[in-house]
């Protein structure tokens, strides 16, 4: 058992591939670990996944807790949670970070409830800081500051868990940057032998259908995103057309997703994906803080909105006050003409 205080990262994987978000968080944990002098530990559950351990180490972990068991071959809540809960009770990590994926969001609350500790969803930043509690006249040193937009406007809240451990947080894909792998990094792979109750195995996965996601929002150089200002499927098709012309992807606000205009996988923002494209075109998106959190680091932002006071205009480099139904076709036409001119010139 390690005596050093530790930061844990839940390592998620499918078909032998580690989820990007787990490696992004391993990198963040490394940063926090260096700041605090803590060990960074990857919790890796699965079956015949030894090969993945070194990759976790290469991205910044000092140790990988490897739970290998047939019952862990596919992600299931109870067996995975059992391993995490038992090990966390024994080893008492200070911090536990989990990717905000469907499985991560299934796993983290189950574990937090069993450990009776705090859990903050969808953090957009993690920092270390001190927290003074007036009632106790006490300062808690080196807490995990779990930072996320607060409900209620242009507000950012810092959440802390002074009294319970581990301090747990989920973070969506793309928020943290994935560090470069260092194959020479050395770490310890510690095997653990999980023991399950019959009660842990009451759920069977009868079949699983994996739909290969064709969209890679995070890596797209250009994103053309639409919001509630887009009212019809026809207008939404313009976004797709423009994205294709620019070699990019289509993004969306939560409002557009909720309206059924596009699949949830395209949602940009605090509870979607965080992106940093070269160019982000926000069409009919007001610019709520939860949306901005996922795109405000884009190199160039074009905002198209009928409302000159839309907050999106304040962070945009190009402000187009106008109707998407008119502006998008103009942009498309301009690009088409340009490529025709180019072809003629050749």
């Amino acid at each position, binding site marked *: 058992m390690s005596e050093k205080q530790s930061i844990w990262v839940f390592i998620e994987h499918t078909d032998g591939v580690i989820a990007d978000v787990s490696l992004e968080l391993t990198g963040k944990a490394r940063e926090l670990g260096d700041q605090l002098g803590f060990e960074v530990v990857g919790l890796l559950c699965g079956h015949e996944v030894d090969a993945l351990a070194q990759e976790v180490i290469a991205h910044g972990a000092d140790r990988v807790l490897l739970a290998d068991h047939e019952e862990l071959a596919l992600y299931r*809540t109870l067996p995975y*949670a059992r391993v995490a809960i038992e090990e966390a009770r024994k080893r008492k990590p200070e911090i536990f970070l989990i990717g905000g*994926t*469907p*499985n991560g969001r299934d796993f983290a*609350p*189950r574990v*937090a409830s069993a450990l*009776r*500790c*705090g*859990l903050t*969803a*969808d953090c957009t930043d993690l920092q270390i800081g001190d*927290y003074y509690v007036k009632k106790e006249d006490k300062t808690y040193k080196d807490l995990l*500051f*779990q930072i996320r937009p*607060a*409900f209620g*406007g*242009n*507000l*950012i*809240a*810092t*959440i*802390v*868990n002074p*009294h319970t451990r581990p301090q747990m947080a989920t973070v969506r894909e793309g928020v943290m940057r994935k560090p470069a792998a260092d194959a020479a990094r050395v770490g310890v792979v510690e095997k653990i032998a999980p023991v399950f109750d019959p009660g842990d195995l*009451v*759920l*069977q*996965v*009868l079949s*699983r*259908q*994996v*739909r290969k996601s064709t969209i890679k929002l995070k890596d797209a150089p250009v994103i053309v995103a639409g919001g509630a200002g887009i009212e019809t499927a026809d207008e939404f098709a313009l976004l797709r057309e423009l994205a294709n012309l620019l*070699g990019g992807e289509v993004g969306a606000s939560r409002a557009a997703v*909720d309206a059924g205009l596009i699949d*949830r996988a395209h949602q940009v923002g605090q509870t979607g994906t965080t992106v940093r494209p070269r*160019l982000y075109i926000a069409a009919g998106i007001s610019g709520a803080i939860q949306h901005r959190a996922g795109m405000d680091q884009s190199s160039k*932002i074009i905002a198209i909105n009928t409302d000159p*006071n839309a*907050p999106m205009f304040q*962070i*945009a*480099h*190009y*402000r*187009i006050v106008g*109707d998407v139904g*008119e*502006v998008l076709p*103009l*942009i498309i*036409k*301009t*690009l088409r003409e*340009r490529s025709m001119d180019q072809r003629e010139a050749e």
Partner: protein
Amino acid sequence: MTDQRPIHSAVLVKQVPDTHNITGEVMTKDGTMNRGALPAIFNPEDLNALEMALDIRERTGGTVTVITMGPPKAANILRDCLFRGADRVILLTDRRFAGADTLATSYVLQCAVQKAGPFDLVLCGRQAIDGDTAQVGPQTAEKLGIPQITYAETIIEITSTHVTAERALDSGSEIVRCTMPVLLTVVGSANTPRPASVRRQMERKLAAVPSEYTAIRAQWPEFESDEALDAYLTKRDLKIPVWTAEDIGATEGSIGLAGSPTQVHKVNFVVLESTESKTIAPTAEAIKAMIAELVHEYIVG
């Protein structure tokens, strides 16, 4: 058909501010929100959970009990549940519940489900739109000591002992089979919630919690006193039960702010730093110039 026993379900629901309706009017000058100006609505995916429970009841017989924790005005969504066909509704309200994070909330829900049960199924929406955390369902399942099926989209089969369900995941779908009791969190794509029935609306429109009696009597002066109204509602099973911390046997230290491990350290106002920006007229020439500039900067290829 095999002999299907009746299935008893609890549905956990929440009244939320309508975050779809954050318009200019509800924003104050400093960019914060005037919460009072936001309409309170039935959390959308909780309606899908209710619909799933009602649909199961139609297939198997049994009952649907709806539970919510919230202020007295959350009785509004409970009435809505009665109009849509729930058999029984319960309001958990207590000043000491206030300030609860998801952990403290799930503890209160656990106590209430245990008191109101036993149930074969506990259903709730995948997440509430005011937080999008999706934590309360799994935390309640853990506290109840039962398994969970998150992101449930379709109930494929339900027997006396097991439920088989399809889960909708970002990356595809999964069919799982699990023993009951089990907790399910339901996604919005699961179904189309049935509307309130006009007949039930007529029959149950007076359903109320005691704190609403004054308002009801103002509208229906034939009830001479709160007692008279109370007796009338009780007789017709229209009095919505209100349970406090004592009623559900919840421990003081585990509820509300005191029972919440997460604390808000600070809330900062975000000042938008205006970037250097250009206003582009929505005309062909202006847009052409903008594109030319972006090409020049290698932003557009």
